[in-house]
């Protein structure tokens, strides 16, 4: 059976599923429940500097969007870092780590962007016996207005500087949590690498307004008729997070820095995808907030079963497996030709493929009087839209044409040789093929 245990920058945990720094990890009560449920580790909700704690709004902290059957797809929040006294959190962290020595205990920290502030808090955290720290450079709301969170994460020089301060002032591994609210996440990741960080974690939440109340004309979540942007998370952000993780994983300047993957991980499959794109473990929040801590049982059993089926014996074997297949558009094989194919036995004749193709694509699906839908190979560019809108899984598939066959759309014979844009005759900057 697959070994799910991980050693992430020296932090050991029985499985790669950690709870992200967020409301589920704000108190010993929650964290103990999570550990009882089987989570491999937690990143304790962000601690601030000593003194009067931050205050939260007293109205709604979350907004959401839903899919069919009110399935939660995206969540946003305007909650700040922990609003409990620092000493209470430190005491609880110490106790929980003592009671659960095999679980990863990482502490998230956000203090003003001054060396003294970081120097002051690090010994306190170290004293708890925590396994590592995560620098919250990502929180996009509230704290960023005070020059912390994503306000730091958006300036690579600050990321590097604070990471360096921390490395100089603690023995604990330093994980830098990155904000996605930037144009190129690699810039921040490289800064973390330069600052000596042991790892990066991403993504933090995305600036968002989930909806507008059309009666009160207030954004949601609405506090007394006004709203502020919140941080967006949940299944809806997973594609954005996967891209950013992959970008860092394949960036030579990031030099293979370990990645803790975050962003919409809801099932074992999501976790496996993050790890395939380079994450050494994953952090989960929204799924736990939606369904409770028990979901980790499915995550563990699912990942374990899949790893067994594939013959992977350790999480490390999975990590980064898909990275070599992430490339730039210009290197995609233009000689690869596929056609959509509709399985008539599976087709339920809803006609959505037809509407999509006819109205918005290439008019490559024919509809007969008896509602038989067939692909017109002469028109099909294999765009995949029909596959995506079909409500029946595997009813429409894209089938690759074998080399030597003639593409009825272009009249050209499918070439078995790989050829991409860099050598394409239409490319003004094409280099001659060798």
């Amino acid at each position, binding site marked *: 059976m697959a070994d799910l245990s991980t050693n992430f920058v020296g932090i050991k945990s029985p499985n790669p599923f950690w709870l992200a720094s967020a409301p589920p990890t704000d108190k010993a009560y929650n964290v103990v429940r999570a550990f009882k449920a089987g989570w491999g580790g937690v990143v304790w909700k962000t601690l601030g500097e000593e003194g009067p704690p931050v205050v939260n709004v007293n109205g709604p902290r979350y907004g959401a969007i839903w899919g*069919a*059957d*009110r399935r939660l797809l995206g969540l946003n929040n305007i909650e700040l870092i922990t609003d409990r006294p620092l000493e209470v959190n430190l005491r609880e962290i110490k106790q929980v780590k003592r009671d659960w020595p095999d679980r990863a205990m990482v502490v998230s920290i956000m203090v003003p962007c001054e060396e003294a502030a970081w120097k002051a808090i690090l010994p306190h955290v170290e004293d708890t016996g925590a396994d590592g720290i995560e620098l919250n450079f990502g929180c996009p709301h509230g704290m960023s207005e005070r020059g912390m969170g994503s306000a730091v994460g958006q300036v690579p020089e600050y990321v590097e500087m604070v990471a360096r301060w921390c490395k100089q002032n603690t023995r604990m591994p330093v994980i830098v949590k990155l904000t996605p609210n930037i144009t190129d996440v690699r810039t921040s990741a490289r800064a973390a690498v330069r600052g000596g960080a042991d790892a990066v974690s991403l993504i933090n939440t995305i600036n968002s307004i989930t909806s507008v109340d059309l009666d009160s004309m207030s954004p949601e979540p609405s506090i007394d008729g006004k709203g502020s942007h919140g941080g967006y998370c949940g299944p809806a952000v997973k594609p954005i997070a996967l891209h950013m993780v992959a970008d860092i994983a394949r960036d030579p300047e990031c030099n293979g820095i370990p990645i803790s993957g975050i962003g919409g991980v809801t099932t074992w499959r999501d976790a496996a995808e993050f790890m395939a794109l380079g994450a050494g473990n994953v952090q989960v929040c929204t799924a736990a907030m939606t369904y409770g801590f028990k979901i980790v049982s499915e995550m563990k059993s699912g990942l374990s079963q899949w790893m067994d089926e594939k013959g992977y014996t350790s999480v490390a074997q999975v990590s980064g497996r898909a990275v070599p297949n992430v490339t730039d558009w210009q290197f995609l094989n233009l000689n690869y030709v596929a056609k959509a194919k509709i399985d008539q036995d599976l087709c*339920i*004749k*809803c*006609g*959505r493929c*037809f*509407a999509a193709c006819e109205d918005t694509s290439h008019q490559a699906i024919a*509809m007969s009087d008896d*509602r038989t839908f067939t692909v017109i190979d002469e028109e099909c560019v294999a765009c995949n839209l029909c596959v995506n809108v079909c*409500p*029946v899984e595997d009813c429409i598939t894209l089938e690759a044409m074998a080399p030597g066959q003639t593409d009825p759309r272009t009249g050209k014979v499918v070439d078995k040789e790989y050829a991409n844009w860099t050598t394409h005759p239409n490319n003004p900057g094409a280099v001659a093929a060798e």
Partner: protein
Amino acid sequence: MSNSQMTPGVAAGRLPAEAYRDNFTDLHAPFDAHEAAVAADRCYFCHDAPCITACPTAIDIPLFIRQIATGTPEAAARTIFDQNILGGMCARVCPTETLCEEACVREAAEGKPVEIGRLQRHATDTLMGAGVHPFTRAPETGRRVAVVGAGPAGLACAHRLAMLGHGVTLYDGRPKPGGLNEYGIASYKTPDGFAQAEVDWLLSIGGIETVLGKRLGEDLSLGALTDDFDAVFLAIGLGGVRALTVPGAEKHGVLDAVNFISELRQSPDFAILPVGRNVVVIGGGMTAVDAAVQARLLGAENVTIVYRRGREAMNASAWEQDLAASKGVRIITHAVPVAVHGKRYAQEIEFAYVSDTLEPTGETFRLAADQVLKAIGQQIDRSPEGLTLEGQRIATSGPGRTGMKGVWAGGDCTGTGEDLTVTAVAQGRDAAMDIHETLMAKG
């Protein structure tokens, strides 16, 4: 002493009072907003959707379901009423399992169609419950149309004509308008006075004068109507019931199922309605099922439907047959009545088994029968003078044109429908459009 299911003969009050309330409540409870949202979520918004094609009134079902899903059931109702002004009743009585829901792609996918009928009811109930009539009349055209028969076809025709600005006089021979909606459909499909409420709501468009208790051939003549009005629409239904021509058919307790149902529908109290301990219903259509099920709900101990052909030939859908079975009705097929036995009152009915081609097999059997309800088909009561009949119904072509100038017809009295409310509505609506075009073309 009170009666029970075991009380011999024909008796009222066989059940405790609360049993009647439970038995005759809504067959399908209405969706609440959450249930409607969940059900609406399942619609795939098909292209050129099969459900629309399957609907005789061609309601844009995916559109109205999307309107429900996006929180505007009122707009959904408008979409429905645009095509079918009796969308509220149709939501209750349509055999959706053989129409829109049979065609639903999720029936193909999972054997569980989107619950279109109940969603339609959610939308129409929402708008009607708010007392909103979503249509206004066009300016008066000065044309006057007589609509004879205030059943589904007549009501749909009258409403459409009034909307287009014509003046309508709506006649009906019964004391109340509504036709079979009021008199002929099982009570549990349209409880709480919905049929009359719907008529009142429909008439609130204005421009429709209702004249009740006037019957064509008695108080009205087609000749006089064509003289007095610019056009006439006949929706007189099938007032006659086919006769049962077997020995003993005249005995007490042998009734027309349609009369049994209409008395039940008009009764202020189900407990006062007499019903046999043993009831036999002859026939295989919706009327047979409606009568049989209601006989059970009134407290009959044994109710049997006997039909001359196989189940697959029954006009009552498989769903209706299952409903009957679930209410404890037994269905016997391939048998025809040969005699009703008893002195003055029916006591037994004798049947002969027949083959698929209705040849007697030589075997007979008897069923105890305090009541025999005949649901063996209806026919046009009296043919209006000068009209061509086809198979004992008024012959029409195109959108309800009879052979006679200025006279249109629709609903069950014509031979083109499937005797469904929804088909009658479509015919009334389409005839109205044709009448409108004809009248306006005259200049």
